[in-house]
């Protein structure tokens, strides 16, 4: 069975809770009976966060198979209630390590080793696959960092190529941005979101869904404006409003129909979710 892919990128600033958005979507898809897995691609050059300072980078999350990974994997596991593996957290360091080993082995036959195609091919080869499975799976893939960073460029290029090489309904791109609120004028501002989507478009990526982190409710006018400038239907502009309690996030995103528009983009059925357990827990 082919896997369907949901890529999640971030714009404007870091620390937008992209991981929580992705994990919430994972929970909402699982609640609809879909088999879900998650991956995080981190654009730093460390092989893994194992030796990084916890005060700078947060905790190191360890998987069953002994990988030292980003703390977002903890959110993933807690939200989707699945155990992840070594292949669930890939860093630029790991990508380069593998490409350089291949170069030393002579795998590239004397060719010049370059970011495109060698690094991007290596990135694409790490996107989740499960050829033996007879069940459809949805892989949620988060790219760390912010669109516009030098470090994330090879990942975005890999996603662009991957989307180009696969049927339109097998991938979905979600862009998570910030809608800042200006207290003095009492306004929500969409310009940073427009700029960040422009940046994505410049490299050939058009998001299917825009998730807006905000402290205040987005009015229909604001959603329409973002839709118009960012080239997506209004129904694909969703707000991700601050919640008091972390585990409310999937329920808040369900109210915004995040899973529904994702499944619509992937041309998959959208049955009624079973969130009884989760609601009771919250």
């Amino acid at each position: 069975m082919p896997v369907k892919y949901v890529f999640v990128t971030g714009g404007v600033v870091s620390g937008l809770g992209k991981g929580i958005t992705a994990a919430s979507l994972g929970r909402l898809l699982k609640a609809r009976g879909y088999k879900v897995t998650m991956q995080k691609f981190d654009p730093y050059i460390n092989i893994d966060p194992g030796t990084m300072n916890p005060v700078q980078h947060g905790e190191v999350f360890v998987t069953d198979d002994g990988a030292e990974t980003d703390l977002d994997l903890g959110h993933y596991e807690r939200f989707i209630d699945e155990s992840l593996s070594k292949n669930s957290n890939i860093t630029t360091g790991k990508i380069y390590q593998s490409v350089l080993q291949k170069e030393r082995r002579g795998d590239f036959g004397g060719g010049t080793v370059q970011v495109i195609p060698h690094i991007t091919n290596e990135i694409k080869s790490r996107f989740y696959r499960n050829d033996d499975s007879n069940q459809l799976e949805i892989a949620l893939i988060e790219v760390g960092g912010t669109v516009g960073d030098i470090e994330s460029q090879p990942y975005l290029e890999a996603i662009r190529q991957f989307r180009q090489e696969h049927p339109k309904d097998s991938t979905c791109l979600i862009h998570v941005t910030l809608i800042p609120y200006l207290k003095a004028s009492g306004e929500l501002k969409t310009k940073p979101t427009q700029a960040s989507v422009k940046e994505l478009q410049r490299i050939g990526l058009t998001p299917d869904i825009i998730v807006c982190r905000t402290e205040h409710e987005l009015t229909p006018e604001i959603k329409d404006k973002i839709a118009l400038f960012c080239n997506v239907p209004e129904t694909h502009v969703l707000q991700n409003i601050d919640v008091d309690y972390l585990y409310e996030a999937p329920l808040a995103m369900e109210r915004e129909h995040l899973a529904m528009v994702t499944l619509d983009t992937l041309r998959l059925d959208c049955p009624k979710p079973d969130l009884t357990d989760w609601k009771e827990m919250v």
Partner: protein
Amino acid sequence: MGKYIALHDAYLSVAEALKHGGIASKATVNIDWVDAETVTDETAPEIFKNQQGILIPGGFGQRGIEGKIAAIKYARTHNIPLLGICLGMQLSIVEFARNVCGLKDANSIELDPSTKHPVIALMPDQENVDNIGGTLRLGSYPCELDPASLSCKLYGSTTIHERHRHRYEVNNDFREVLQQYGMNLCGLSPDKNIVEMIELKDHPWFIGTQAHPELKSRPNRPHPLFKGFIEAAISCKR
């Protein structure tokens, strides 16, 4: 309490697992973050006077160590529920060896390489490891629990699997003296070479684990140790 408390995300899974424990008991868990460097035998009574439980999470290195040991001593002698994770378990052994077994300079080799009583030692397969990256004992390993232990009652099983991330372990040369003075080495690796869990016999709730149970706790399936820890904290009247 810990030494990386400037960034709460440094203990993200621990904090989440505590919340999950609270969900199981329909209780709100309030976490007071205590900087390990502020704790001494003198300051501990004031700092912990209202606490219903003390959790010592994992960590590395020298800073804050004596503060953590002072906190463990306070929890042990005041019957406050204590959960020691990884380094937290190792320091519970150090505290017990010093203050109960009378091994005054007991320490971990990691913290004092010249100690005469190295109750925590480097794991034998770590001796020739030079690189620090990716060389810890990592991932899921099984552990056999003493069927009579509180830990076994909490897990509801004699064989458990937990994720690990450590380079040091309980020094087996000191097992006898620790047990003699009332520490139950209640969890061992299946080959019995590694002490995985400890608990105190004369204490309402004092458990240490070499593993990181917080990594397997889920909001809809709270981890048994955290569930038990919160239950014990609720019944700890202060």
